[in-house]
């Protein structure tokens, strides 16, 4: 049985991620993307409940929330962080090699995913995992 976490945590983390990625896209800031890549890496490798955003959720946002707590499996948001990590790494490589278009497109996709999650409770793992499996085997 895998770990369960407060379902509101990943959703609020997606809100913060959306803001960070939006600023990075507007300012073309590779440093901000590098920071976000580290956040994604922590979420993908250790778990989404250990990121700085989860820390902000737990200490700043959660005490102010009145909605009832629902728990969810930690694996779907962890998968989403891994996808985010891939996009941000592609963006960093694009920027380092002078391919500004690659940076913009990769950050754009990461932003779209984070925004969809924050605004529409979009489940990236639901939509992408089977497609990845089907493409590989």
């Amino acid at each position, binding site marked *: 049985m895998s770990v369960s976490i407060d379902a509101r945590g990943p959703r609020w983390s997606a809100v913060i991620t959306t803001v960070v990625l939006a600023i990075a896209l507007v300012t*073309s800031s590779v440093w901000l993307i590098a920071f976000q890549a580290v956040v994604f890496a922590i979420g993908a490798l250790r778990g989404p409940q250990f990121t700085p955003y989860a820390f902000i959720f737990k200490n700043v946002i959660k005490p102010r929330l009145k909605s009832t707590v629902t728990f969810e499996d930690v*694996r779907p948001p962890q998968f989403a962080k891994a996808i985010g990590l891939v996009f941000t790494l592609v963006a960093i490589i694009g920027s380092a090699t002078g391919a500004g278009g690659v940076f913009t497109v990769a950050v754009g996709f990461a932003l779209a995913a984070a925004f969809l999650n924050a*605004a529409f409770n979009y489940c990236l*793992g639901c939509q992408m*995992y089977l497609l990845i*499996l*089907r493409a590989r085997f």
Partner: protein
Amino acid sequence: MKTFIPLAFVLVLATGYGLWYQRTRGEFRKKKTVNGPKLTAAIVGTELGARATMVQFSSAFCTPCRATKVLLEDMVKTMTDVRYAHIDAESHLELVRELNILSTPTTLFLNHAGVEVGRAMGTPKRAQVHAALAAIH
């Protein structure tokens, strides 16, 4: 270099897609082609219902899969002629490909003969399941 064009582009497209995504989750879609493959008890792992069978495909990185399973299991409890089957998509990739399952959760609605009459992607509402089952004779 500051530009808001990529940001606006991403947010507009993602909002459009998100609205479509939210509206279509759980919606029962009638199968357009005449007859798909006939599923048997051996394939779905459960005896088929006398009138209908709901076959849910799930994966690990899928938050709404559990809610769907809880709902459908609860609904068939009070139905004598409808059965529910649950399949892990990852360990049945050949079947997933044959049935063209693209995302999880996907629930197939089979008639008494084990032929798919339609499917729903995402967590359906109770009323949507009732309506889909009512259309199967």
